[in-house]
């Protein structure tokens, strides 16, 4: 089978501008989010956990309280900042662990032969068949709820997906002729994986990481909302939603702020992932 010459021109149409917009928005939102989370370690307008009953349920724009206060008089903006911290740690933590384990597993499945592949892939399938929420609840029941539990639950859920994605990307890189050349030079498999395969699947890894990061934040919010995530004095946006639920008839905006925060950050991260994929893919895939 021969591979025939294709056109030497590379199409770079107007879509590039729209692509950059996606990426730009994604970057802006992500940076703002991370900045907010990190800033919370150094400065908080008010203590987010100490009740101040006289100042309860103040509306947004009140002096000293940027977004107002909740039912116990705690500053909403400060709570959001600390909540961002949680989202960042849990989301990034879960995604990172999945990335590391998933990459190792995926590369091994792709390169170490049929038995390794079957074992790893079936293992991943089994893990995938258990719903993430169930895992989270079981873990919460056994080792107690909290940030660490959530990270573990997220990892167990995302790792098999990551494995699959990396495995398939690695398989297609391993088909290329430069891998054959490396084998001809008797390079050991682990070296080929590290030197040749990993850089070429890096794009896929980065994109998946941002997407799972976003999913992690959403899941963490859901778990905290249900009460099996973090608890006071840690703060989570999901937890804020739960507390706001009791005030729905009295002060609806309470639920709006954490909800909006979740939506914006998750959307921003997804846009970042999409934008990155568009930027990285053409160099990797469409050059052929």
């Amino acid at each position, binding site marked *: *089978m021969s591979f*025939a010459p294709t056109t030497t021109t590379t199409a770079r149409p107007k*879509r590039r501008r729209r692509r950059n917009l996606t990426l730009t928005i994604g970057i802006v939102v992500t940076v703002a989010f991370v900045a907010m989370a990190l800033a919370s370690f150094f400065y908080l307008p008010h203590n987010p956990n100490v009740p101040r009953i006289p100042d309860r349920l103040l509306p947004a724009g009140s002096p000293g309280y940027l977004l107002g206060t909740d039912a116990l008089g705690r500053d909403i903006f400060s709570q959001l900042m600390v909540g961002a911290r949680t989202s960042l740690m849990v989301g990034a933590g879960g995604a990172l662990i999945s990335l590391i384990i998933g990459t190792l597993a995926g590369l091994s499945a792709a390169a170490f032969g049929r038995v390794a592949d079957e074992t790893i892939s079936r293992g991943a399938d089994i893990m995938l068949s258990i719903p993430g929420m169930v895992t989270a609840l079981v873990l919460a029941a056994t080792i107690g709820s909290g940030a660490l539990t959530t990270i573990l639950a997220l990892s167990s859920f995302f790792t098999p997906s990551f494995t699959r994605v990396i495995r398939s990307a690695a398989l297609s890189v391993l088909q290329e002729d430069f891998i054959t050349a490396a084998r001809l030079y008797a390079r050991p498999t682990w070296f080929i994986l590290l030197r040749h395969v990993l850089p070429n699947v890096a794009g896929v890894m980065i994109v998946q990481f941002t997407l799972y990061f976003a999913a992690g934040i959403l899941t963490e919010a859901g778990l905290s909302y249900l009460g099996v995530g973090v608890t006071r004095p840690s703060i989570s946006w999901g937890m804020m939603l739960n507390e706001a639920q009791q005030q729905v008839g009295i002060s609806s905006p309470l639920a709006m702020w954490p909800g909006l925060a979740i939506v914006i950050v998750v959307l921003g991260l997804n846009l970042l992932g999409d934008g990155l994929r568009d930027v990285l893919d053409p160099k990797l895939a469409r050059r052929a």
Partner: protein
Amino acid sequence: MSTPPAIEVRNLSVGYEDINAVRGVSFTVPAGGRIGLVGESGSGKSMTALALMGLLPAGWTAQGEVMHDGLNLVSQSDRALSSRRGRTISMVFQDPMSSLNPVRRVGDQIADVIHRHNGVSRREAVRQTIALMVQMNLPRPEQLARSYPHQISGGQKQRIMIAMALACYPQLIIADEPTTALDVTVQKQVLRLLKAATSERNSALLMITHDLPVIAAMCDTVAVMYAGRIVEYGPVQQVFRNPRHHYTRGLLDSQPTMDNIALDGTSRLVSIPGMVPPLQRLPSGCAFNPRCPAATEKCRAEMPELDRDGAACWHPVQTRETAIA
């Protein structure tokens, strides 16, 4: 006169933003005629084909006139075009592996085309499909029709594509490197089939390839493309026996065919020095001048048009020194 030409292309230009892959190309395919478009990578031949079918990638635009079935295809809506694609004008692509739908049975894919354009019932479409497959010399057609693309060979896949292209008796079939991905032994069968089937249906054929012998075997007329323009145009017998443009001559001389190699190992292919220029950095004047043995200042200054005898050259080849014996 009698039947209008299958397609008439006038001053077609195709490009994106400020770069043109096709720069003012004109040719006519008479009804039932066979014309070959010869060119290498970067010549613009594939973009020409896509422009004719209205299948340009996003961001690419076409200007000029492409007269077919009474309309200028360049200015048509996608709706008007899609009613013609597959019916009056169809295409056979290069790589059968990626142009057949991998998750549908091949028989269904052919039947789809018939059902959609000929307005017949599904059952009738299936019947016509089998008849078509028999014509394509495909073995055990009923069984083959139920196969998926990955289960059949490259040559068979290409014949399925040809069947899809011919199903509605189109006025014009565009074949873009139809046999490049196939083994030489299969190539012959497929080309033979394409030639016979198109002449039987009186469909015109636009054959696009970089393989000169294929054009010589299949077509009556040839257009040689270089850097987005047609540099030589004429009857294939004339152009290939007495090429007047230096690029055409270079192409003919650089092929290791049994015509120009001495089998005792003493011959040496004459290759054209240099490379096809990238579209963003085309030479001024005649795009071929940096690689041309006969280039002069005039060639760098002015771009030549096709002369009366079909060559776009300021100093065309006068006589053919190395004859194809």
